[in-house]
Each structure stands twice: as C-alpha cells, then as structure tokens.
C-alpha cells in the first residue's frame, strides 16, 4: 500500500508540470545572478553545471529530472572573475556578464563558497516531511466494514462469555443478620464468651463440578481506605531481619515494646470467621491450600518469618495466627493481605475438591466471629464453581452483546444513510466549502 501511494506521489509531478518546474528553476537562478552581482561583496566565481545539477532534487522522478538536465546541458559563457565585488554591486559592467547569457540559461555567478554549500540543508525524506506514509481513509466502505467487524467479533465473544458465565453454579447466603438473634449485635459479637456457631443450609439445584470455591464476602468494609492500605510493612513480611521495620504500620506497629509481626491494620483486622461444610450431613474437607498466588507465597511472604507478638496488644482485631507456621504458608492471611479494590469484596476461603450433585443439601457451619456489625457491613458465604471466565459474571457477556449489537445496527444505519438516504460520491468536489457556498 505504501508503495502505491508513493508512486501516486511521483505521478503528480507529471511531465507537463516538470517543464514548468524547469522553467521556474532557471528563472530563479537567473534572478540569483542578478542579485549576487547586485549585493554581494564576497568574490564570486563560477560552477554553473555542478550547482545546477545539485538543484535537481533527488526526490523528483526521472521524468522530472530530464527537462532540467536539458536546460542545464549547455554550459554558458562564464563571467569574468571580478576581484572587486563592489564593481558589480552598484553599476553593473558590460564585461561582467557575457551579453549572450540569457535568463533561460544558468546562473553564471553561482557561488562556490563552501560556507554556502554547507548551509544548504541536506535532502532527506525526513526533514522534507516526505516520508512515505500510510493514509488510511474512512470511506463509507471502511466505516461499515469496521462496525460490522466489531459486531461480528463482539457478538460471538458475548455469546461465549455469557454462556460460560451461565454455566457457573453459585450459592450465596448472607449470614451476619441471620446468625445473630439478639438486638445488640455489637455486644454479641464483642463478647468472646458466647458461642457463635451458626448453621446455613443450601439446596443445590444444579450439579456443581469440583473444584467448588468457597468464598467469604464482606460488604461495606473499606479495605481500600488509604489509611488501611498503607498500614503494612512488606519488608517485614519478606525479610527476617526486617521485623523492626514497622514504621508504616501505625497504629498497629508495636506492642509491649516489641514489633508486631505481621504488623499493620491489614493483618490485624484479619478475617476470623470459619466455615465447615457438610454435604448431606457429611463433613467434607475445604482445602485451604493454593488459594493465594504462587508468587506471593514464594517471594512476598517469607518462609522463615513467623508471626510474633500478633494480636497481643490492647485491642484485638481479628484472627490470631499460629506462631509455628511461617507466613508463607498462612495462605488465608496472604489472601486477606491482598487488599480489595471495592468496599464490597469476596475472598477465597478454600476449595472443595469434590463434585456436589444436584439436590444435595449443603450445610455450612460458621463460627461467626468477625465484627461487621459495628461498621454496618455484611457477611456472606459463597460456594461457586468457576468457568474459564471466572465466576458468575453475566455483565461482560451482556456488555459484549450490547456493543456488538450496537455496532451491527450502526453498520446497518450507515448503510442506510450512506448508500440510500444521503449517498455521497467519494471525493465529490461539490462538498468543498467553496462549492457549497454557491
């Protein structure tokens, strides 16, 4: 395509124009002789052919160059070299220029000064802004094609993703309200003496293929609050000798004069509800391995860092940690420490690696410890399968379908408008402003 455009470029300067160019060139140079002699003090001498050849821009195609060559092929009688340039400046001298040198001919007093030659910009496509360029044009055809293309790309994607999303079986139940029967919910949750066991029952409507992901979902909890996000020490989590680096963890940095590991509000407010899942009354294992990202486990949380001094301060936020397990293996903590983007978030609790059949009943036994009551939040437990697209996410499929549909109708609309209602011949000069005014 580039080549084609380039060749058009050259063809623009057809032979007829090239003749004019040649004339123009020669006239310019004649004017030059006029003025050099008129104004310049520097001694001037002659090399007409060489300089005139340099006038032929390399970018002109051969057809253009030919007439130029023609016009310069006859060396002119050269001017008598004049050491005193002022001679020619004012008065002009019949001997200075040969009488036979006509303006059509080349300039005899072309300077050969090195300074002038080096002054001349070197021709390059770049500096002359003549780089070959692709100039895509939004023709009606391309417009319609583009919209059709988007439509034909997006609608299938929409269908596929929506389908994948619909395959997902999700069971979700909010339990923070149902699990507490007193009115003083905050008092209830803050009283560590009360047994907080709570049971939820689900009936499975559709076959749930393993792995079934178990999530906890918290609402109205600002894990993305700046004060919360900042309050952690990544160095401490990673390096053994960095336990004291708790400056950023304020207000949960030190307790009893020793640094808290892991420090900071994020770790301190660690979620501490626990779920036990029973299918048809039979307890099945919820695997809490491999719920965190591999890289987090391997590199961000040290395998030789053990919790210490954690939840020992005056206030107890959330879960306590087993001080004998290194942080890199406390995957639920690692998951928690990946702060969520929105105040309502869902985090992976574990996986059930067993299919659950339709019409099975699932019982989730919850230790309802975590305080979402003070903050007016919510808690839910979610059991969900996942497809290649992830969880149940109809939105993206619908969005794809919407945009695809929109583009399809736009394409049709443009077909109607551009080919039927208001067809316009491409490059129709009638549309130029000067023709429209009339």
């Amino acid at each position: 395509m580039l080549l084609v455009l380039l060749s058009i470029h050259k063809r623009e300067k057809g032979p007829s124009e090239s003749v004019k160019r040649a004339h123009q060139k020669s006239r310019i140079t004649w004017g030059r002789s006029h003025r050099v002699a008129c104004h310049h003090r520097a001694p001037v001498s002659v090399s007409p052919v060489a300089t005139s050849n340099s006038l032929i821009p390399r970018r002109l195609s051969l057809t253009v160059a030919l007439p130029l060559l023609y016009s310069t092929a006859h060396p002119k009688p050269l001017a008598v070299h004049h050491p005193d340039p002022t001679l020619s400046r004012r008065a002009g001298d019949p001997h200075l220029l040969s009488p036979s040198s006509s303006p059509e001919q080349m300039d005899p007093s072309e300077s050969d000064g090195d300074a002038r030659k080096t002054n001349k910009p070197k021709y390059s496509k770049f500096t002359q802004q003549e780089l070959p360029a692709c100039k895509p044009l939004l023709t009606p055809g391309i417009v319609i094609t583009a919209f059709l293309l988007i439509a034909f790309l997006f609608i299938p994607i929409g269908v596929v993703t929506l389908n994948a999303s619909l395959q997902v079986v999700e069971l979700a139940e909010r339990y923070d309200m149902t699990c507490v029967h007193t009115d003083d919910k905050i008092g209830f949750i803050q009283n560590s003496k009360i047994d907080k066991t709570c049971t939820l029952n689900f009936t499975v409507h559709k076959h749930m293929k393993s792995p079934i992901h178990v999530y906890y979902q918290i609402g109205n909890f600002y894990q993305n609050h700046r004060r919360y996000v900042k309050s952690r020490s990544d160095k401490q989590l990673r390096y053994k000798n960095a336990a004291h680096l708790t400056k950023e963890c304020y207000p949960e940095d030190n307790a009893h004069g020793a640094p808290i590991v892991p420090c900071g509000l994020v770790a301190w407010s660690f979620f501490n509800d626990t779920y036990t899942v029973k299918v048809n009354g039979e307890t099945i294992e919820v695997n809490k391995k491999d719920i965190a990202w591999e890289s987090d486990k391997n590199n961000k949380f040290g395998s030789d860092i053990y919790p210490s001094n954690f939840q020992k301060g005056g206030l107890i936020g959330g879960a306590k940690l087993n001080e004998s397990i290194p942080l890199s293996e406390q995957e639920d903590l690692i998951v928690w420490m990946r702060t969520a983007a929105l105040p309502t978030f869902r985090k992976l609790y574990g996986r059930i690696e067993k299919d659950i059949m339709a019409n099975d009943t699932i019982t989730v036994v919850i230790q309802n410890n975590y305080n979402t009551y003070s903050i007016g939040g919510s808690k839910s437990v979610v059991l969900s399968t996942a497809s290649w697209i992830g969880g149940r996410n109809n939105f993206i499929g619908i969005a794809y379908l919407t945009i695809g549909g929109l583009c399809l109708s736009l394409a049709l609309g443009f077909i109607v408008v551009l080919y039927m209602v208001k067809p316009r011949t491409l490059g129709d000069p009638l549309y130029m402003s000067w023709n429209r005014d009339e």
Partner: protein
Amino acid sequence: MARARKRDRLRWSKLYTFSCFRHPHTDEGGGGGGGPSAASGSPVGGPGFSRVVHCNNSILHRRKPLKYPTNYISTTKYNVLTFLPKAIFEQFRRVANLYFLLTAILSLTPVCPFSPVSMIAPLAFVVGLSMIKEALEDWRRFMQDMKVNNRKVSVHKGDGEFGFRHWEDLCVGDVVRVEKDQFFPADLLLLSSSYEDGICYVETMNLDGETNLKLKRSLEVTLPLEEDETYKDFRGVIRCEDPNPSLYTFIGNLEYERQIYSIDPFQILLRDSKLRNTAFIYGVVIFTGHDSKVMQNSTESPSKRSRIEKKMDLVIYILFTVLVLISLISSIGFAVRIKLDLPRWWYLQPEKSNKLDDPTRPALSGIFHLITALILYGYLIPISLYVSIEVVKVAQAHFINQDLHMFDEETGNTAQARTSNLNEELGQVHTILSDKTGTLTCNQMDFLKCSIAGVSYGVRASEVERAAAKQMASGAADDQDISLEDVWENTEDEIQLLEGVNFSAGNTPKTSIKGFSFEDNRLMQGNWTKEPNSNMVLLFFRILALCHTAIPEVNEETGALTYEAESPDEGAFLVAAREFGFEFSKRTQSSIFIKEKYTSSNGTIEREFKILNLLEFNSKRKRMTVILKDEDDRIFLLCKGADTIIFDRLAKNGRLYEPDTTKHLNEYGEAGLRTLALSYRMLEESEYASWNAEFLQAKTSIGPDRELQLERVADLIERELILVGATAVEDKLQTGVPQCIDRLAQAGLKIWVLTGDKMETAINIGYACSLLRQGMKRISLSTTAGDQVAQDAQKAAKESLMLQIANGSQMVKLEKDPDAAFALIIDGKALTFALEDDMKHMFLNLATECASVICCRVSPRQKALVTRLVKEGLGKTTLAIGDGANDVGMIQEADIGVGISGVEGMQAVMASDFSISQFRFLERLLVVHGHWCYKRIAQMICYFFYKNITFGLTIFYFEAFAGFSGQSVYDDWFMLLFNVVLTSLPVISLGVFEQDVSAEICLQFPALYQQGPNNLFFDWYRILGWMGNGLYSSLAIFFLNICIFYDQAIRSGGQTADMASVGTTMFSCIIWAVNIQIALTMSHFTWIQHVFVWGSIGTWYVFIIAYGMALKSRDNYQIMLEVLGPAPLYWAATLLVTAACNIPYLIHISYQRSCNPLDHHVIQEIKYLRKDVEDETMWKRERSKARQRTKIGFTARVDAKIKQIKGRLHKKSPSLTIHTVA
C-alpha cells in the same frame, strides 16, 4: 592601494554644500577660542560626562580606575554560573510548573497520596528538558556572539605598526584602521580617512534602516594622522559623555597637543555601521562592547505567545477549576465520612487517629484532605503538555529550517524559525503588513525608459506592463462566450505562464547589465545622433553623466569601471550614460571627466567638465544640481529632480516639451516606474559670479540659519530651467512577489504595504504587485497641510482627514456591486492624525473594508503603530515582514515578525521570529508550515486534554469507592509513567508528523489555509468536544471495569481481583483507549507514528512485566505474568473497554466525514481515489476555485477583467475610478 589612490584624493568638503560643514567654527577655532569655550560651556567632566579616553594608550584602560568594559559582547541570557538559578527561576514562572513544584514539595509530607518520587521525577524530567532547550538556544546565541567577537580589525600595536586583532580584544583608546565595507568594531572617533579632508561615507542601515550613505568628517587637527607611521607618537585625551543610547548626539572634547577641540556627532562612527565609498579610515575607540550606542539601543525583543497557547492557558485554568471542584467534593466527602463513619470503622483504629483523619475534627481533616486531593487529581493538569509542546515545536522549527523549498541558493540562507513558540501562529495569520523596499522589491534600479525632448524611448516593457499585456490577452480570449470553467482554465494557464516563463514570454533581453534594461535602437550605438532633437539628447545624456555625486572606481584587473553612488537610482543613470556612450571616467577635485563616444568624429574622446558648485539632493529639496563649466567655458546648470519640483521651476521658454513629457511621466508611472525630470540652464558668467558670491557668503555664514540661507540661495539659481526630459527606472520586484501575493490573497490573507517611499512610487509598486489594479476604487487620504505647525492648521488638517475618511466609508457603504474593490492609500502625515485615538477606529474600519491598503511615507514608529492598530483593533493575528532596521518596531509589535535575511543588515532578522531570504518563501511558510503546525498543535493540545481527563477522572471516581480516603487505584509508577512515557511519544509524533494533506495540496488549495484563521481546530466546540470525550471515556473505563471485577472470581482458579489487578486492568484499558484514540485522530502514518503508537502499547506490557518482576512492585508483583495474563477476563475486559471508549468517536468522525466533510477530507478522498489523475479537468477546476474571494492579486485582476467584459455584454457601464484627494 591606499597610497596609490592618494593622488586623486578629493576634497569633498569643497563640493558639498550642505550638512558637512555644520560647525565650521569648531573646526577652525581649535587653536584659539575653541578650547576655553568648550571647557567652560560644555558639561564635559560633570556628572554623566565622566568618560576619559587616552587615545593610543589603551594600556591605561586595562586597569582601574579607567577600566571600561571590553569590546566583548554577549547577548546570551545565562552564563555557566547563572544558568542553573536563572533557568530554574524562569521555569517556575510558569503557573503550571509552580503548581507541580508545590505538589512535589507537598509530596514529601504525609499528605501526599503517592510516593514522593512519582511527583518529583516527572517534574524534574519536564523542567530538565525545558532547561536543556534553553541551554541549547543560549548556546546558539553564544556562538553567534563569538562569531562577531572574533571578527578581526586592524589595530595599532605601537611604533606605527598595525596588526589584526579580534574585535573582543579591542580596548578603549585603541587606534583602529577600518577598511572599506567593513563594519566599525566599536564606537570610534574619526581621526582621518583616505580622503584628504578626512571625510568618509557611512552606511547606517543596521542602526536606522536608512540606505542612503551618511557623511562623517574628522576634525581638522587630526587630518595629518593619515598613515600608519604617524600613530607612533600619537597621544590625546578624549573627555566625553558616558555611554547612552542616543544615536544622534555626542558631547565630548578632544585634548590634543595641549589644545581642546570639541567633538560632535559628525566625528563619531558607530558600531555596526559600515564604511562605504572610502578606502579606509583611522579612528580611536571611545565606547566598546555594551557601552557602544548600538548595544545600548538594543532592546530585548518582547516574548510572544501564540493565540493557541493563550487559549490553552484558559483551558488549563478551566481544568484547574475542575480540579479544585472535585477536590472540594472529595474533601467534603472525606470530612463527612470521617465524622459519621470513621468512629465505627474499627479496623482503622479510629481512636488512634492523627490530625489527618481525626473524627473529632472533621473540618481540619477535610482541609488536609483537600491538599491530598489536589495532588491526587493533579493528573487532570497535563504536566507533560508544556514540555511535549516544546519538543514538538522544536521539531517543527527544525523542519522549517531544513525546508529545501525555502532555501535561497543565492544567499545560501535557509528559512529560520528563530523562536519556535510561534509556529502554529503562522497558520492563523489574518493580515500581513509588509515593508516595500528590500522586501517586495530588491532595491535595485534598472534604467528602462526615458523621454527626451517630448519623445519617449525605451521599448522594453516593465513587469507591470507585461502583466497587463497578459491580462489583456486573456481578456480578449474571453470576448467569445466561453463557459466559466474554461475561463478558469485559461487563468490557470496564465498564472502558470507567469510563473514559469516570465521573461521569455516578453521580449527576450539582449543584455543583462545590472541597472540597465533599456532597449531602443534609436538611441543605442550612437544612433541618437540621427534623431531630430539630437542636441537635446546629447544634453540629456550629459545630465545623466554629470549630475551626481558618484565616484568611479577602476577595477585594476579588468580596467572596468564601477560607480560608488549614493543611491541605486544614480548608479543606474551612470550605467545608462555609459551604455549611451558617455562614460563617466574620472572625478578630480574640481572636474568630472567623461569619455564620449559619438560626439566627435575622432571616436572616443575624454572631455573635462569643471565643477563650480554642487547642490546635493535631500528629501526636502527633492532635486540636485551641478553647476559646471565645459571646455568652451560655458557655464551650465544641470538639475534633476522630482517632476513636480522641476516643472515649478521651468522657464517660460523651457516648457516646450512639458505636455509630452507629462504624458510620458504618467505612462511611466502607470507602468510602475520611478521617474525623475531632467533640466538645464545656461548661465552667464556675470550672473553666475554674482550668485556665487552670495552663495559663498551663505556657505561660510555661522549660525543656526545657515542651512536656510543655503537653501534660499540655492533656490535662487535653480530657476528658469529648461526641461530636457525624464527618466524612468524600474524598481525591480523580488522574484515571485506578485505570484506570492496572489496566492496569499487567495488564501484569504489581507496585505498592507507600509513603505517609507513617496505615494507615487508606492502606488506604482502596488500596481506591480497586483495589489492595485485598474477599476479599483482608490481612496487616497492625505493632508494638504505642509509644514504648518500652527495649531489651527493642524486642526484643519485633521478635520479634512476626518471628512475624507467619512467620505470613503460612505462610498464603501453605498457601493452596491459586490465585486467592487477599494484601495486605501494614505501618506505618513495623514497617518499621524489617523492613528490618534479618536480617529483610529474610523480609519481601521475603512481600511478593513478596502481590499488593499498602502501606507506611504511612514516612519518606523508609525509602522509599529499601524501594526498595533491592526493587531489590537481587529483582534486577529498579524504578521509583519521587513528587512531593514526601520522595520524592527513593526516586527516586534506584530504577532509574528518575519525578517528578510541575506540582503542587508541583520537588525530585522535579529528582531524577528522567523527569517526567510525571499518574500516569496512567505507563501510556503504560511500556507504549508503554518497550516500544518496549526493543525498539529491544535489537535495535540486537544488530545492532551482528552487523555488527562480520561486518566484523571478515573482516579476521582475511585475515591468515591474508597471512602474519599485519597487512595489511588493505580500504582505510583503507573501514574508516573503515564504522562512521561506511555502516552507522550504518540502525541508528540502527532504534533510533529501529522499532515492532513501534502505540501503540494496546501499550495494548490490555498483556501485550506482559512481553517487556521477561522480557528476550526481549536474552537470551544472542539475543545469541549474533546473534553466530553475524555469524560465519557473515563466513565466507560471505570464503570465497565468495576462491573466486571466487582466481586466475582476472575480466573478459572476462583481467585478474585484485588486492588492491584483492578488498577492494572483499568490502566491497561486507558493505555489502549487513548492510543487507539490517537490512531483514529491521525490521518498520516509514517513508520514513526506506527512505532510510537503501537510501541506505547507494547511498552506498557513490557513495563508491567518487567516491573512485576521487581519485588518492590508490592501488589503488582508478577501481576501480568501470574494474575492477569492467564485470565481471559482481563483481555476480554481490555477489548470491551477499548471498543466502548472509541466507538462514539468513530461514529462521530464517520458521520462527519460521510455527511459533512471538510475540505481536506474531500481532497484526501480525491487523492486516495486518484481522481485527480483520472479527472484532471475537475482537479484543475477545483484548484482554481479553491481560493478565497479576493480582490487583489493577479487572479483578481483577471477576474475583474472577465467581469468587466461580461458586464459590457450586459450593457453595464464599467466601474469608475474615483479619487478623493483633498
């Protein structure tokens, strides 16, 4: 060589009558009264006059207390030491930079939502880049200074030896010897010259723009110091005024050989003026370097900003307002949250709050948060906008400098964008104010025609006549009823013809002698002797050869003669005389020798004419006279001058040829030629003697009325003249000027000519340039009041002018014919009144109604005032173009100043924003570069706003979901790189390389230029449109992503998205969206754009992968490779959001292009479909139609002709020419 010439030295003081003897008493009275009077009467020695110069003893000035600055000049803004503090100060004078500096400082406090480095790094980058640019520009200035400082001058080194030294090493008190055509290196006291009486000619072009030579004269007492050896023991002390900028005054005295002589400006040679017509001078340095008058005079050129940038500032203020607004919303939200919710948010341990988020003092926290928010949303203000614009403009300037089409082979000069910040302004020019001499014309005179004894000679046509002939030819073709299109065809060919084969179309010139284009066999080769009035012809030629002040110079190698004349006209006369066989060969003290070829049968003989008196030319007298005695002892008075002056002085019997000559003069005038009338008078010996006695008395008189006396006496003898004939000299137009004016007019530009010339000349040139034409209605404004200074005369003049303007406006208003064109011609005196506050708007209104405006006899100051009037009165962009120092005011005043380089002087160029070497390059500069630069910058700025709004607002939306806590969803590094790396190169490539149409098409369709002056690409509609697009995109990016990543798992492994994944996905979407957006905006993809646009997207992925590998990336650790990359949802989201962001714009441009295409869209299509090749008729037709309705220029002339002929067919009367001259 100097010694060789000594023999024929001339005492010019004897020849000259005026000006050079202004203070004879000080010269003569040196011995007696001069000394004491100077000491007592002058302020020398007092305050302000403390300078002491020990001549030829510069050692004394090398140390204190007489140490003066060296001759080293520096125009640089900085030096090595001051660069950093000064340049940094300059940078932070910009409001936006100051804002960013403030945020950078605040980023060191806990208020800042980001890490300090992400605030400081971009600022350092941006400021650093600007400073590098400053440094480079200053370096260039430094190199220019060095070039001047390293010029060499011959200096007395002691013992009568002179040797060369750099200018910069020159010291006060040095004696220098300056050769012909050299510049004076410093302000000098003239001691002696190659002329016996110590005079020299000086060209002050660089100082005041005047081209005529000025005479300087040394003190009598220093005349003997005329050889190198005499300086061996020269000592003297000059006591004079301190450095000051006044060019025309000098007070001081010279203590020499125990006498005191007073020095006046006639002995002072100023730096940057040039020695002319004089072999050499000796002078002693008084003021060096920055003390010199020219340096004291130099004013810093005002810094100019383009319209677009001013508007851009406005948009930035709007963005600032938006920024403050959303920051307020955010901080109020924060305060409310803190007050109501924070106490309940146990996980934040609210009881341990500090003042930044203290629930008990929400207002204070809110105020702190306001600062945080201002920093956080700072991305609304594009930090890199200024620096990107600067980079783009430097590149654009480079393209202008490198453009081969604007390279002048003759002078070896390229176009220079001397300030790069006005590039886009070139695309918005509305009015061009042009100087005439040196800009439109070459200031080279060609003897073309003459009228002798009532017979007109000279068959060569002037350029104007040739143009007119062509016009007539085309007019004749139109007599047949041809369709309009065909006529267009014809005119098109006409223009081509004019461009291409201008000279061969006319008579092919047989000779090409500078200054002589005359052709008529009746006079050449001695044929004039056969003419009926050969006596008169002889006299005519003798006047040409004798009535002048020129000096012949023999070229020693060829024996050819050249003439050193004071004006080019005079040079042309002498060349003409030589060609006619009257070669002016020698001038001695009292005689002029002429080699006459055909006057005697013996072939060439040399005749001697004794000069008795020479009454030289000045602008007041407008004539010059020589009185001489021929070999037969007859006394002749030969006088040449302006026709009106000469005709007033004719004797009764001298008016024989007056009617014919007047007729010819009018013809010549119409042909665009400069005319002078020649006359003579025979004097009786006695008559002359009595006059001469009176004259001598006047000449030697002392006192202020001496000039008047001389003038009066001169007037006595310059009477009773007999008219011989008239000359017509063509002031050559520069190459391509009429064509260029034509094209510029077609591009819709208005052209005003401001010239110092007299009205007739200006009108002639107006015709030559097609600014005027027959059938145009001319409104001439002038005042009859001559030199009256009386109050009532002034008032009367003003009232009459007021009336004239009112009449003119009335006439324009009443004109019904839409094709009627008016021309306004105003002279300098009328202009002084017209520029007064109460009248200027009336004047401007009238002037804007007229198709062309010519102001004659304007002073440099008036040029600037007119420019200001147009600039401020119309509120449109003005461009001033000129070549001389007299244009500096205008160049500095206009929005864009263009200097013509390469001819004479650099003053205009130094003051200009752009310099070109030929007027015709203006077309390309405006129509191609201006057009491109305007569109590029406009699109670039719009896009910048779009992209930063898109990005900045997503941060704001997120705040609402993060309790307004000031947490950013993006990593600090993303934010940092967004402006500086990831999105800057594509937009720079847009600004540097975008071309809507190619250069050729810009030139072929001058109407496209109007997109600039109409501001089609940077009007509020467009700016707000882009901002709206940004708003939409930000909403789409944020909310689509939020919906997609709300709570569900994003991978088949069941993992949910954390803040880092959401942020990274959103950022990916932004990078895609804004880069696709710019790809849609561009219409011209070279490989560079491809690399930059697609490369930016690629860079983002490279960056996020690389960054993800670094442990410091915290939550973004391995985010692409492990978390997002394998998630189909991430890619699906990117595609969806990118499409959603760009589809509305795509719809917009598709619709606009399809249903409402702009001119360049259609042209792009034509080129794309190669319709221009297939349908050449259409292409040609459109090209000729693609121009603004213009009333000036060659094409307009042809138009008028066609209309006239058509009108005639419809029995309409042709339009009348109306003059209203008071």
